[in-house]
């Protein structure tokens, strides 16, 4: 533990800051220009479809970064992150449903599905959801409370590895069953759809889409910056040490529970925000978002990109989802083969994902010692042989410890 609080100040290098600025300029300057100012016939024009697809992928990428924060840096694989994503989506969806107002099929005060169920008034948890501020609070608070309570009990019992993965899967599965019921009050099977406007702006207008895209991009960049600040801090050190040798960290006097709990809750909130931005862009939210399969797919985005790096999951999410869009349009019957093989090949041959491959290729070209100096001077927890069995026990696959990543964002 040779680091000092001053590491926090070098969280963002000058280069990263430049990249961040460029990203923001792209999202708020170039993209609006391409989408709005250029006529539809222009080859550089961004169509609504492309804009929505990229906005969607940015939301997915945020979820991937959130999952990477706990899987890559804390060694906890959650197979229930789709739940937090969907809860955020539902919370914001409630606001969107209320903003439909009287423009629904039944011209009623209540959302259409309630009229359909012959309900006379809003259930209690729908109160106040016509306020944007309150629903944004719900977006953050509901998943955070759920994650905190669930995480508190799970981490206190020192449930880890596969057990944790399976009970998170059970959690999202149980919630999905709950949301499928009409009586639960979230539209059952169909969920929420037919949104009309957000904050008074028509939801399908290109301008609204551009703003939503910009917000998604900003959220992603914010998540990466937050992750960077977190993992380069002392907090991040303890977290990674917990990942690699939890018992040792405890013997050194740390209580891993709160470190894990903080990053777990934070990760859930990031997912929820991404979900809230996702729903107005795709125009629908239903319980199938909570299916265990969706949550496992998030894990493959991270694995493909490279876990334990912040930029990897972004690449992973983009790559897998672009492939999905392409496959489901051109060869729908081969998509599952492709996805399945990706799961297998990445775990067998690319344990560190694309980013790991890129690093290996680069360090292979440079001389071996140079590769070491390419890593940042930031101190890392040394990987000693005795640390290995423990890492295995924690389900961390016995990988040696990596230093924090500097060349990411």
């Amino acid at each position, binding site marked *: 533990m040779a680091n000092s609080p001053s590491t926090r100040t070098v969280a963002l290098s000058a280069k990263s800051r430049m990249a961040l600025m460029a990203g923001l300029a792209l999202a708020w300057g170039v993209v609006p220009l391409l989408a709005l100012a250029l006529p539809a016939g222009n080859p550089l024009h961004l169509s609504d479809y492309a804009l929505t697809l990229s906005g969607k992928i940015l939301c997915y990428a945020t979820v991937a970064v959130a999952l990477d924060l706990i899987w890559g840096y804390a060694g906890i*694989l959650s197979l229930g992150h789709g739940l937090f994503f969907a809860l955020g989506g539902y919370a914001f969806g409630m606001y969107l449903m209320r903003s439909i107002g009287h423009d629904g099929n039944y011209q009623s005060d209540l959302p259409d599905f309630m009229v359909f169920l012959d309900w006379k008034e809003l259930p209690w948890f729908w109160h106040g959801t016509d306020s944007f501020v309150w629903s944004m609070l719900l977006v953050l608070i509901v998943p955070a409370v759920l994650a905190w309570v669930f995480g508190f*009990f*799970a981490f*206190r*019992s*020192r*449930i880890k*590895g*596969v*057990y944790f*993965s*399976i*009970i998170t*899967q*059970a*959690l999202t*599965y*149980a919630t999905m*069953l*709950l949301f*499928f*019921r009409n009586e639960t009050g979230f539209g059952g099977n169909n969920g929420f759809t037919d949104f009309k406007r957000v904050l008074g702006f028509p939801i399908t207008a290109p301008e609204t889409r551009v703003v939503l895209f910009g917000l998604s991009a900003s959220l992603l960049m914010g998540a990466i910056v937050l992750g960077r600040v977190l993992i380069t801090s002392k907090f991040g050190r303890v977290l990674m040490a917990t990942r690699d040798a939890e018992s040792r960290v405890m013997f050194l006097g740390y209580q891993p529970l709160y470190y894990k709990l903080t990053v777990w809750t934070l990760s859930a909130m990031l997912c929820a925000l991404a979900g809230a931005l996702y729903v107005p862009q795709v125009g629908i939210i239903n319980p199938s978002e909570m299916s*265990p*399969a969706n949550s*496992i797919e998030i*894990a*493959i985005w991270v*694995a493909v990109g490279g876990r334990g790096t912040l930029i990897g999951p972004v690449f992973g999410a983009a790559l897998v989802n672009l492939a999905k869009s392409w496959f489901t349009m051109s060869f729908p*019957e*081969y998509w*599952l*083969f492709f*996805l*399945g*093989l*990706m*799961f*297998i090949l*990445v*775990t*067998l041959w690319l*344990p560190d994902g694309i980013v790991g491959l890129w690093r290996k290729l680069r360090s292979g070209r440079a001389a071996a010692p140079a590769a070491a100096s390419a890593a940042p001077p930031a101190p890392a927890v040394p990987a000693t042989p005795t640390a290995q069995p423990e890492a*295995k*026990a924690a*389900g*961390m*696959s*016995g990988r040696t410890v990596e230093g924090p990543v500097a060349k990411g964002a």
Partner: protein
Amino acid sequence: MNRLIACLLLFASLCAGSARAAMDPALLAGLAADESDDKIAAIAKVAALADADALRVLVAMSKDNLMIAGDKFYIADGDKLSDAATGAELSARPDGLDSLTINNRVRSALDSALAGLRLFSPNRDKRYAAARELQDSADAALLPLIERALKSEQDAEIRTLLQYAQAVANLQNADAAVRLEAAKALSSSSNPSIKSTLLSRLQKQGDSYAEADEKVRAEIADSIKQIDKRLARADAIARVFTGVSLGSILLLAALGLAITYGVMGVINMAHGELLMVGAYSAYFMQGVFRAHWPDSTDWYLVAAVPLAFFAAAAVGVLMERTVIRFLYGRPLETLLATWGLSLVLIQAARVLFGAQNVEVANPGWMSGAIEVLPNVVLPWNRIVIIGFAGFVLSLVWLLMNRTRLGMFVRAVTQNRAMAGCVGVPTARIDTLAFAIGAGIAGLGGLALSQIANVGPDMGQGYIVDSFMVVVLGGVGQLAGAVWAALGLGVASKFLEGWTGAVIAKILVLVFIIVFIQKRPQGLFALKGRFVES
């Protein structure tokens, strides 16, 4: 149905003896009455004859074959036409032939009259079924028939049913004392439809009760209470049975996983797809039998047992050799890679067998049900599956505890290095153990094909349940898996009674989540030094 009628006719003509006399035309005339009430009264009168003629006329009437021309009745049978009263065949068609119209009320009276006539069938099962039908719908008009049947009936079980039917009919008797007696007699029944008949007597119509006498009402209420008590007990028995049945299904789904995950520690997310392989081998075998041995299709299931085992085991070996063996000791990676395998297998099933669910029929010897109590009916396919679960369980137990291979598997699980040192080929044992686990999953899938949908996505529905069973029971414990499966099955069936199926499922999942927090090692924890590894 035709055979039944023919046999009834034969019997009725025998018991009627010389009675080949024509029916009284006045009796028949009532059947064409304008009012339904008159028609029903006429039907009862005809039925009371309880002879071949009556049966012939009523059967014809219920099949809409009774015709009328002027004031004479005829029975049409295809092209042939016969006189309803005498049964004599006619050569010429009379003018103005018209069929009788029957509404639903008349039809139900007709059905119970026919049931009354069937009380005299020589076949015990038919008499039993008729007596059962009558106790649901007995009517004062049928009393003479029931009483006559009671006199001649020897079978004790049918006699009891007939007595209930008589009591039900007597509930409408004009004499309060008879009604009281009837209400008392019904208290020993355990039939829900008798209960609803009794309840209807307690209902208010306007200001007065359907049952006028207060003492009779009290007696009826008392009888209802007694029936309720018996019904609740039957309900509990039925719940336990469906719970055990669900438990045996869970066990079959989870046993394979208890080996691959429980004993070997491989997180096999493609376990559900191994079940699917087993289910599809039942489908495949069914197709083979239908094409080549159509006479013995009922036995396709038996032939599918080895196929399901070896097909799933072969897929298992393939999975182990190509993917899983590189990932031992890395559970999270195994989880992701086997999830990938499951996607590939699902898609392969879609390509091979189509994306739709396929139809797998129950063989004849598995359909039907046995009735333990009047409203506890145990379907044969469930019973066979419970038996099959026991068979597979003992197979696994024998394999693990009584064979050399099983000993090696246990040795490798407990201490891989030491087992290797004394000459156990650990890598081959891993493959074989995984193959056995996969094969057992195939057998589970075969059983599931008999009660659930068979389709490419079927495996996904079982994966969470299977893991819950294994984790709840305690990893590495076959006995734990058995108790966990049965416990989960019975508990969720009882919960379903109170909360509905979906909430019950959610509650069970929440219970398991909470349970794992308290006892991560499961119900039956392994003891010894290899627990921690």
